[in-house]
């Protein structure tokens, strides 16, 4: 068992007299990625804010052992009065990192996130996707050992979602990641564990080994995809992301190739 990075004991949180969470007890180990799931208004964001230290529990106890925590809100602030790079430089300076050291690191992140063309653009004028990336970057710049993200894929187009998932996949080997989400894709690709929030209670679920594969293809026309009767498919322009049971994946791949599709990626759903 690894180091416990967060521990909650009989946690209860009330907001304006309403109990949002109660009897929540769980432990979170370091370097584990966790998805927090639940219906709208179930208390996912409240739980994430409790873990981040933005909220304190009404009763119960939470022990936060992370040295540095990064937090990415669901909606990046709309009215920041800074240019993109200026904002990130200021945020990095909160930790007292010398400007020269930080400049190198910042350039690497800016390149990794593909936001070089916007570094001198006022944040107010940046697109939702760029702001979301800046939201993640500000959290990464403080070199967190715990990264908390609230609905990170909300409002992003499929390409930006794919990019973001690729980034999170790289990051999950370096730090603990906890995120709230409604997206199966994100849970499948990133999470090792799932915390379900229902009626204010938190249930911990360790994910079993996947029995699904995710296939990414480029298709010449999408009419035939409906004939294949696929349960889980995301289409963006001429690309499709299909999730199928492992025992049916070979058959599907053969079908797709026979119909002149290009297979771009095949991976197991984690």
């Amino acid at each position, binding site marked *: 068992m690894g180091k416990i990075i967060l521990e909650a004991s009989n946690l209860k949180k009330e907001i304006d007299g309403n109990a949002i969470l109660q009897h929540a007890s769980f432990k979170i180990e370091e370097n584990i990625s966790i998805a927090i799931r639940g219906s709208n208004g179930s208390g996912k964001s409240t739980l994430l*804010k409790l873990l*981040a*230290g*933005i*909220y*304190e529990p009404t009763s119960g106890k939470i022990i936060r052992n992370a040295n540095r*925590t*990064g*937090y990415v*809100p*669901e*909606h*990046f*602030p*709309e*009215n*920041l*009065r*800074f240019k993109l790079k200026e904002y990130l430089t*200021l*945020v*990095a*300076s*909160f*930790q*007292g990192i010398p400007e020269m050291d930080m400049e190198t690191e910042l350039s690497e992140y800016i390149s990794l996130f593909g936001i070089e063309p916007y570094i001198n653009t006022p944040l107010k004028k940046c697109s939702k996707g760029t702001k979301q990336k800046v*939201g993640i970057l*500000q*959290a990464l710049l*403080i070199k967190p050992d715990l990264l908390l993200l609230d609905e990170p894929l909300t409002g992003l187009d499929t390409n930006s979602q794919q990019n973001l998932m690729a980034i999170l996949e790289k990051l999950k080997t370096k730090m603990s990641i906890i995120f709230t989400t409604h997206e199966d894709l994100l849970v499948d690709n990133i999470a090792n564990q799932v915390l379900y929030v229902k009626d204010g209670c938190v249930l911990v679920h360790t994910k079993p080994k996947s029995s699904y594969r995710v296939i990414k293809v480029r298709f010449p026309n999408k009419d035939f995809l409906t004939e294949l009767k696929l349960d889980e498919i995301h289409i963006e322009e001429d690309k499709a992301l299909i999730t199928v049971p492992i025992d049916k994946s070979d058959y599907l791949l053969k079908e797709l190739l026979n119909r002149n599709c290009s297979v771009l990626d095949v991976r197991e759903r984690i």
Partner: protein
Amino acid sequence: MQGFIKYQFKSYIRSFKIIPPAATFLIWIVVLYHYSGVEILSSYAVTSIALYLLTTWISMNIFSIEEESEKNILFVQVGKVRYLLGKWIISILIAIVFMLFAILYPLLLDSFKEVVQPIHLGLSIFVHLLFSIFGILVGSFSTITSFIPKRYTWLSAVLVIAITLSYDGIVEKLSLLKWLFIVLPPVVNVINFFEMDDLNYIGKEFWIISSFAILYSTIAFYVLMKLFLKKES
């Protein structure tokens, strides 16, 4: 902390919210010293009160400048205590700039009827700083505690300012309120010593009242911090 103060300063200046209070204050000072040959201590008493109003206004702006998600990010990045201290520091730094203007402007214009001595300058710096702190306390109380609903923040600040400035008159009519008003900044208690414009009045009693004002401010900052942490929990 330096980085956070820089962040706050840039964000506040670029919001242009400083323009109305700054313009009001500067006009006030210019009008006050339109005539030359005015008294030293009582003039500085008036500008201290102007600074009291200004810092209340500015600190309320500074505490309400962020939307919720930006505040949440800042809480995680710098912590709630440093967030609050940073806001107070930026408020006092801005107040110092206006204090320097209020003190130096009449000197440059040679507006006073007497020659200004170091004791006048020392007292003026003290009273301006003290009233800036009072302003920050009133502005903070109205915006960062959970006592006042958001829509009544300005009303409550104006009410506290009005009571603190008309303390003598209210207490004369309703003496029992004296004990209730002990929770408010002792504005009149300090300013009364300056109205006579006579250094002879600045004696032991003045320093006792001033010591009380400093003690009051220290306790008030501590209490406000506790109330802020409670509200933001």
